[in-house]
């Protein structure tokens, strides 16, 4: 097939007339090497396409570039804490839960890549090969038609152009390669997938599960389906239970582009990976009505160059992908590529993670655990599901939770040997719980490009204008009251149920702004993630999302990417581009 494609290129492509263009020409270009860029690269390379992956950040080689991966707590001068000076210089990124002395090198610092917050929005980024797949949360629950049909049923925004049946086999396809540990729980609106054996619940989690399932007919507590291996996969060892994933895993035991998709892509010899290359815009051929390539700025030399391909996948990460499209203006697309609808940049979503709960449990003093489990438990959505109908809000939420036994027992001793003794013994059990609320797509939650300010590379500064609204806030009340009630019912003490007032963006599930839909007048992408009017451009990262459900989204992005790559290569074979 490689040969076939090559032949076709040489005959038909108008891009190959110049020497420089020939040198810079590929079958496909993938912009971004994060969780979806990695998948696009793997799929396109494995299908025989010479593929160029452009990454704006530095290279991060699997294992070799994980400098903190095997450090002990005492190997860090501040024992994991980030010095005050770093925090003050980085109010945005230092508010991220995963940013610490062991992981900070995988996060964008505030000053390196400024953006404008019209309203407070903490945009957490990882500009490097692998992107945020190095530091992601790894929870991977499927969507169902409860999610895909919601917009249409409720008359919110626009209908998704796909249903669960369109993506189910692609979920299976990516799950097998990603390696997801989990249990088949038989929950219709949280479909089972292709799972490796689950990581077992500890005794407190089991107790909580029993209490919830005994007391509420429509609620279940399950082991979170998580992209951490319990069985080896080619080139990747099972989890060693260190729970240090975000530093990079020397065992390759969690899924990242670096450990998984990029090595698979490279093994085909079809991959070219260029780091320090930021894409400025997509080049549009007015005559042939398709994209021909991308304009790239070398982030170090600031030199510009162009790369050409028949297929372009934009996987720069939701907000950056949309900013590339907004910046890709032409006669045909004066307001940004694919933006006939005016929807480009609008309908930004993040999950509402402000519901922060927890409690202690005095039982189970004769039980403990061995190893550090890198996942927790998951309470799937139960609001506005089946017979449950809420008057106060649409959609619903899930809970993430996890139990552990505290270090240290209570004591009267203020200091000395008795205090030391007490603090070296395990104490009561604690459970943390976070509500994960769906956020509706609102037109005025949006991303725009500054008209007068540019960054170091001449790219317009991105402005983010986002807030949670009434539906999200009403849902938050229910998150706090239902969560606290379940903790109380299960015999927890010192129960906390607080609105953390966490700034939006910190769900790090920014999605939407180039949504999929059924026509070019209301959406940016069609049912195969093709940009309306520039059908050889595909957007398969979070930008494509039409609604955001309450599940962690990366699994769905990966499935959509594999599906779109398959479609793209078939169309290319049919010479439709």
């Amino acid at each position, binding site marked *: 097939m490689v040969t076939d494609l090559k032949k076709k290129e040489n005959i038909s492509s108008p891009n190959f007339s110049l020497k420089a263009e020939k040198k810079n020409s590929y079958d496909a270009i993938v912009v971004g090497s994060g969780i979806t860029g990695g998948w696009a690269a793997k799929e396109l390379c494995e299908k025989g396409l010479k593929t160029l992956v452009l990454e704006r950040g530095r290279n991060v080689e699997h294992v070799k570039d994980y400098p903190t991966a095997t450090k002990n707590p005492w190997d860090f001068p501040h024992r994991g804490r980030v010095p005050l000076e770093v925090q003050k210089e980085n109010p945005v990124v230092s508010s991220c839960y995963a940013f610490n002395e062991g992981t900070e090198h995988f996060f964008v610092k505030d000053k390196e890549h400024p953006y404008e917050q019209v309203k407070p929005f903490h945009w957490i980024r990882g500009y490097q090969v692998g992107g945020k797949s190095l530091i992601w949360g790894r929870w991977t629950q499927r969507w169902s038609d409860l999610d895909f049909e919601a917009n249409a049923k409720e008359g919110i925004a626009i209908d998704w152009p796909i249903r669960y049946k369109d993506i189910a086999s692609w979920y299976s396809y990516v799950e097998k390669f990603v390696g997801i540990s989990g249990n088949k729980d038989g929950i219709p609106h949280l479909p089972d997938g292709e799972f490796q054996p689950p990581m077992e619940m500890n005794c407190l989690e089991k107790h909580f599960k029993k209490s919830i399932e005994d007391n509420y007919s429509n609620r279940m507590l399950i082991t979170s389906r998580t992209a951490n291996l319990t069985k080896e996969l080619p080139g990747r060892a099972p989890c060693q239970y*260190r729970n240090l994933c975000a530093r990079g895993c020397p065992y390759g035991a969690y899924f990242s582009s670096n450990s998984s998709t990029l090595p698979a892509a490279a093994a085909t010899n079809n991959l070219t990976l260029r780091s320090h290359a930021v894409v400025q815009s997509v080049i549009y051929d007015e005559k042939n009505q398709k994209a021909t390539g991308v304009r790239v700025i070398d982030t170090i030399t600031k030199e510009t160059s162009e790369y050409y391909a028949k297929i372009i996948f934009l996987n720069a990460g939701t907000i950056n992908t949309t900013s590339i499209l907004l910046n890709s203006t032409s006669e045909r697309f004066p307001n940004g590529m694919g933006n006939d609808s005016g929807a480009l940049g609008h309908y930004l979503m993040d999950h509402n993670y402000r519901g922060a709960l927890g409690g202690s449990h005095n039982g189970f003093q004769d039980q403990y655990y061995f190893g550090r489990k890198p996942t927790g438990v998951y309470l799937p959505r139960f609001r506005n599901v089946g017979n449950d109908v809420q008057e106060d809000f649409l959609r619903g939420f899930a809970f993430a939770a996890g139990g552990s036994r505290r270090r240290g027992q209570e004591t009267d001793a203020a200091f000395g040997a008795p205090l030391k003794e007490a603090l070296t013994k395990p104490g009561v059990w604690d459970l943390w719980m976070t509500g994960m609320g769906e956020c509706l797509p609102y037109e005025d939650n949006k991303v725009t490009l500054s008209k007068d300010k540019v960054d170091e590379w001449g790219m317009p500064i991105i402005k983010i204008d986002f807030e949670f609204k009434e539906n999200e806030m009403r849902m938050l009340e229910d998150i706090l009251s239902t969560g606290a009630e379940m903790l109380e019912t299960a015999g927890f003490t010192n129960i906390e149920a607080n609105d953390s007032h966490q700034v939006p963006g910190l769900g790090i599930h920014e999605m939407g702004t180039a949504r999929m839909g059924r026509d070019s007048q209301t959406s940016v992408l069609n049912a195969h993630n093709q940009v309306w009017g520039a059908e050889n451009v595909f957007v398969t990262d979070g930008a494509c999302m039409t609604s955001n459900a309450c599940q962690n989204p990366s699994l769905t992005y990966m499935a959509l990417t594999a599906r779109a790559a398959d479609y793209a290569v078939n169309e290319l074979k049919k010479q439709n581009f």
Partner: protein
Amino acid sequence: MKRREALKNVALLLGGTVIGGSAFVAGCQSDRKKESQSDKSLFSEKDIEFMNEIGEVIIPTTDTPGAKAAEVGSFMAIMVTDCYDEEQRKTFVNGLNKMKNNFSAEYGHFFEEAKLDERTDYLNTLELEVETYYRQKKTEDPEHFYRMLKELTLLGYFTSEVGATQALNYIQTPGSYKACIPYEEGEKAWAIA
């Protein structure tokens, strides 16, 4: 110290609510003016030794090494310099000096040269002082120096190599996971929950 107060204080120490909290956990949004943190000489070698000795009374050597072996003095110096704001640094440094002088005035020699019962007496006095202070403390009042020092001692000790591997149980690479195992009274806690 009343039992309830003592429990509360220990709970605070265990729960990770550490002074300079905003500085210690990611999420600080302080809009204070940028301060110079280049002054790394807030503490002399003698100060560090002094802090080691106070730490050793809080976490003494028993069948496992104590705070001194964990070098909590150096750890405190790093944390106060890098993770406290200017006001907190001032509170800490002034508090340390005041303690040094008060102790000498009261006992006629330095803390480092004192017998354990003198050291214990003095720390008991400080514990009472802290309890009274926090009972009356208004939100805007600074934290108490001794509470800062005690928190740093516990944090530093239990995350140190001797604290984590000898006083507690630490396995860098567990390699397997057992969700539920019996716990026998007296067994050490995991260094990382």
